[in-house]
């Protein structure tokens, strides 16, 4: 049975996605920092769905380790899904470049470094799928989180270019743009219920979009229209807003 590689596997969203793929019949490679913390997740998935789950240590900002990590996988995966991201506190990112850098590397540079390697392999094999979890925050920079947002915007542009490059080889690239999702990242925010997805819903959406060969997924779907409106607000008005 085929393997799917899930990076940032401790995140609530990734966990739900991992369960979804296991339920649908895939074996899993799970990669995250502090690999021992993956043990309950991996045990959960084998108990539920009787799949093979293998766990790997991977820090996405440790760029030099990516090549050997990928080469160490026993069998090359049928697809990769990266949920790695870090929002941080916008205010800290404004005054502390170290923090700012961490946000950029976690959301953008780290993902680029790893996906470059995987894309080359998939391109040569002429098969595979790449799913990147970006964010609606990348659709337009807002004062509330534009460091995070700009890193996501860069990642979105990267995925778009990669999709264009790999089109002829049949390798699929899916950009996922969640709106609000109820996870650890947002646990202390008071999110509007109607606009907030549960991780399980995101997982089901991701699986279905990936299987259908889609390019871009907004989840919940209303976010496509919310962002359409936000993107179309003229800059001279937008710059005055607090949204």
């Amino acid at each position, binding site marked *: 049975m085929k393997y799917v590689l899930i990076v940032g596997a401790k995140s*609530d969203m990734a966990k739900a996605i991992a369960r979804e793929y296991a*339920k649908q019949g895939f074996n899993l490679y799970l990669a995250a920092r502090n690999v021992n913390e993956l043990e*309950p*997740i991996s*045990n*959960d998935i084998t*108990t*539920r*769905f*009787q799949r093979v789950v293998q766990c790997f240590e991977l820090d996405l900002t440790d760029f030099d380790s990516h090549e050997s990590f990928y080469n160490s996988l026993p069998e090359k995966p049928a697809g990769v899904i990266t949920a790695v991201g870090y929002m941080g506190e916008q205010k800290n990112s404004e005054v502390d470049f170290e923090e700012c850098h961490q946000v950029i590397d976690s959301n953008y540079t780290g993902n680029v470094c790893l996906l470059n390697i995987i894309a080359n392999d998939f391109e040569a094999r002429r098969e595979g799928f790449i799913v990147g979890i970006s964010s609606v925050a990348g659709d337009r920079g807002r004062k509330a989180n534009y460091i995070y947002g700009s890193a996501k915007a860069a990642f979105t542009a990267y995925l778009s270019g990669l999709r264009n490059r790999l089109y002829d080889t049949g390798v699929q690239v899916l950009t996922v743009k969640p709106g609000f999702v109820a996870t*650890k990242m947002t*646990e202390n925010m*008071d999110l509007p219920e109607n606009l907030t997805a549960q991780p399980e819903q995101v997982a089901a959406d991701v699986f279905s979009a990936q299987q259908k060969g889609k390019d871009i997924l907004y989840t919940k779907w209303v976010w496509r229209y919310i962002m359409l409106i936000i993107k179309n607000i003229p800059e001279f008005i937008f710059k005055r807003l607090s949204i």
Partner: protein
Amino acid sequence: MKLSGWGNYPQIESTQYNFSSEEQLCQIVEEHQSMAAFGNGRSYGDSALAKNSIVMKNHNYFLQFDERNGVLEVEAGVLLAEIIEAFAPRGWFPKVVPGTKLITVGGAIASDVHGKNHHVSGCFSESVISFQLLLADGSIVECSRDENKPLFLASCGGMGLTGVILRAKLKLKKIKSNAIVQTTIKTENLKETFEAFERYKSQPYSVAWIDCLAKGSSIGRCLLNFGDFAQDQKFDFVQKKKLNIPFNFPSFALNNLSVKAFNWLYYHKVLNKKSTKKVSIDSFFFPLDAIDNWNRIYGKNGFTQYQFILPLAESYKGLEEVLSAIAESGKGSFLAVLKLYGKENDNLLSFPMEGYSLALDFKMEPGLMPLLEKLDQIVIKYGGRIYLAKDSRMSQSTFESGYPKAEEFRALRKSYKLTDKFSTLQSQRLGI
């Protein structure tokens, strides 16, 4: 944030506590009072509404499964839906499931829920081998029929008032198919309904939908559904057409007329006295789950589900009285479920006793409370009780006449210093 149960009534301002480790939870419990675990919020009333809510839903790891004896260990936030999703295809099923699969294992234990098979399989606690319970002092104890038995008997059905259930070992049962062979019987009045329940007593799963607005000689007419898992060793059954009874209800406000029209349609749609067909697990056990947020059709004032049970010997008379009172009042729901229950268990606050139970929804509106109080009087008169998992309004005296072990439960709470630590709007109202 504002928190309410499935009935959207009442509401409470509540602080949510998430935790990522047991140490963190212990600390939260040590530092606060008036807490309760919150599962998936499927209790209708105020059972789960506390000033300080402990959020359980994210604690949903499966821990282990023993293929030889069907014993599954999970964290308390796991939904029954997740267990069914993973295990029904492998030929295993929870021994007891209620009318929704969207409840947590912790909530199932705390309400000691029952299902269509109560008359043969008892309550959820029958499937519980053991669980771990976090007490007021931050200690974690193992509870089973052998270890800490008093805590076991109090916590099964204890509405979260004995501490936080962290994980549990459950025994699943073997099934031979993922399809159900279901038979529907139509009766003309309460007498026929009782006779039908008696006649099909050996069927493992049964429940009846009562037409509440029927009057006079038709009082108590029903559609009785019963059935069991098929024996075909196939686990790929998919229901072709979604059954659109009884729930594709338009979401305009419920009024007496629409309820009447609905009940009539539902009842008359089934033409034959007796019909049998193969249906899916979801359509047989969880028809309401097919509609997201169906509870919202009652509007922002919410609704309450009134569920009571009467001892077997008094059931007929009591039900006749209750149904007449409801028909007379002109209030009532499109959901009225009647069921014959089996023997009572030893748990202190479990709802079921041997007899008949009726459950129906009422929209919150002026004039409702007096009607429900009138019903309470009938229930008490015949020695019955009201289900805590559905309740949001009964009085302390109604509670006490229905639950003879209330005092024992209170004393246990006191001796473990649980009384102020864990409390909900319901426990305060009922003086538990």
